[in-house]
């Protein structure tokens, strides 16, 4: 297959377009690719080759960032399968999910000790793990990309909340 800058992240990395991924293999592949494309390899090369290298190196880094983050990878799969996320336009969530989010927000406002916050962080981590498992099922087993997109949007809420908990822990000097 001829690869171009417009090839998909999965094609550039030689991986099947699935959610499940071997992280160690992804990291190794990233380094192998950068060994070929990084501008440092072309420090004494003609300007045209240097420009090529720059474009490829940037593209490889972009693909790596997207593929290594589960949320970004899932969102990318949705895009590739005609079900882009469009988070700003699709804000409808299930009532149960919204209740959970509101409860978490209240708990965060009331939490004032590192122990409270660490407990919250653990709860969020558990929820996140469960959602990722469901994501993998929707993506690789059911091949239902519309459902996957909805799950991605929900997970975005959860990730933002996890970051807020971390920020509060930072503030308390942990």
């Amino acid at each position: 297959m001829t690869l171009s800058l417009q090839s998909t992240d999965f094609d550039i990395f030689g991986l099947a377009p699935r959610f499940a991924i071997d992280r160690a293999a992804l990291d190794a592949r990233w380094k192998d690719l950068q060994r070929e494309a990084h501008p440092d390899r072309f420090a004494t090369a003609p300007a045209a080759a240097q420009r090529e290298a720059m474009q490829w190196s940037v593209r490889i880094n972009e693909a790596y960032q997207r593929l290594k983050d589960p949320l970004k990878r899932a969102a990318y799969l949705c895009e590739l399968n005609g079900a882009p996320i469009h988070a700003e336009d699709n804000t409808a969530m299930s009532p149960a999910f919204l209740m959970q989010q509101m409860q978490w927000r209240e708990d965060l406002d009331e939490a004032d000790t590192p122990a409270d916050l660490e407990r919250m962080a653990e709860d969020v981590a558990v929820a996140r793990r469960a959602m990722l498992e469901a994501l993998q099922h929707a993506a690789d087993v059911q091949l239902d990309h519309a459902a996957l997109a909805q799950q991605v949007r929900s997970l975005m809420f959860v990730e933002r909340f996890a970051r807020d908990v971390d920020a509060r822990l930072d503030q308390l000097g942990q």
Partner: protein
Amino acid sequence: MSLLQISEPGQSLDPHQRRVAVGIDLGTTHSLVAAVRHGVAECLPAADGRVLLPSVVRYLDPAAGGAGREIGFEALAAQVQDPANTVSSVKRLMGRSPAQVVGADKLPYTIVEDQGMAVIETVAGRKTPMEVSAEILAMLRFRAEDSFDDELYGAVITVPAYFDDAQRQATKDAAKLAGINVLRLINEPTAAAIAYGLDNAAEGVYAIYDLGGGTFDISILRLTQGVFEVMATGGDSALGGDDYDQCLLAWVLQQQGAHAALSASERAALSAEARRCKEALSEEPDQVVFAATVAGKQIDQVVRPADFEACVAALTARTMGAVRKVLRDAGITASQANGVVMVGGSTRMPAIRRAVGEFFGQTPLTNLNPDEVVALGAAIQANALAGNSRDGDLLLLDVIPLSLGIETMGGLVERIVPRNSAIPTALAQDFTTYHDGQTALAVHVVQGERDLVADCRSLARFELRGIPPMVAGAARIRVTFTVDADGLLSVSAKEQGSGVEARVDVKPAYGLSDEQIATMLKESFATAQQDMAVRALVEARVDADRLIAATRSALQADGGLLSAPELVAVESLIDSLADKARQSESAANIESATEALGKGTEAFAALRMNQGIRKALSGKKLEEV
């Protein structure tokens, strides 16, 4: 200047032809130049055998005639008697406005503002930090050229990992003024990791704790099979050994009850004595005596190691705070580090070694000279970039240390490139116009982690011109922010509908424009003796020579990718360029022939890259698509 050899057409490239490439550590207090010789990296000494060059430049009264300035040990010796004209620690001023220079009031020379930049008033006129740094870099360049009895091809210059875009650009500008071809700017901790990694043949996760004269960096790197991957980096670009000196000085004055304001000369003398005491305390004696004269009175203050450690404890704690943050960014705990490397003369302080050792639960690695390790690593990288090492198995995958963002409504920052993103990287943002027929757009780029523009560092204003006039809101202008392998930002913009590329004018907040640099080059010492036309011709020949050599090398490796007619076409462009380079007296003619060869090999470059990528994937396919 010696004449350059230009390859005769038909002559194959000598595989053993080496380019003189060096690594330069442009430090706050000391600078060094190193090179790989016979497979080993070593620091190059001056005629007197010393490898360290004090980063001090003294400007002399032009009326007195002569060279006009002293650089290095000579200048350092004059610091006490001529503090106003002896510029030390200029690294603290690079890419900064006067308001941003921390501890400006404690510097013995006068800083004023000029076009946003901090510049120094000397008896020889206003000097920008880039000019001062260029003097130091030129000294090192001449030292390298003397050592090798040959022209310098290029250098890798190191910068603190935590240096922002303006500080990096200032460093590149200084190198340009010194006539040095910068192969790459690399981060100091990464350079140290190269020296240690290749020396200890180690794999794993390493923390590099780099406390220099004026800057502090902490980087976490993963080393695997010659690939140095930076996981996260942090630090404080205004915290270093100098601050420890000042802390001790303040303590001594307080003990002595001396409250009178100090003259510049006194301050310089006291700072020097503070540094001497700090260094003596590293030998762990029972005590040292701080001896100096203040306002005519002789003072002798006893300083015990415990006194010193108590007064600098807050500074050390600040470094450990930065260490904690960078571990969080890297997603690891202190116990997961396989090793901790100490870099920078200031890490000789026993208190620092103890604090770091306790934090990481292991003895830090100190077997390489902390003053030299950065230059050595840079030399190894320079050697690889110049194509001197046979198998290119060294690869640096570094990151941008601070987030880049743009100013949006209400003085807020919208982050475009997050900190610790792998470089090179490019991210795009779409803009539109607010008025009918608007043909220009201004984008204000800032660097930092805060949410308000006022709390971040202003980098530059990019003015995009030539947008096709349309109804307000109809234009879709995609602005692409690219951070290159040196960590430097460039901006390009295209109106998506029409495909028109906007012209981008960069107005740096704290730097020099390209025209200003060109003017300075014309007037600088490096070019003063030469006729500008001659210089342009020589440079055109050197560039042509380089392109011919590089193209020949590429053909030797992958000529098989081209068809017979394509090969003939490229060879004829090479021949034509080689002819012009030899015979033409016109720089412009040679430059256009050089450009023609470049354009003529674009398709070849694309084929080579594609082949390289496929090679990286072949034989390692995990799954069938």
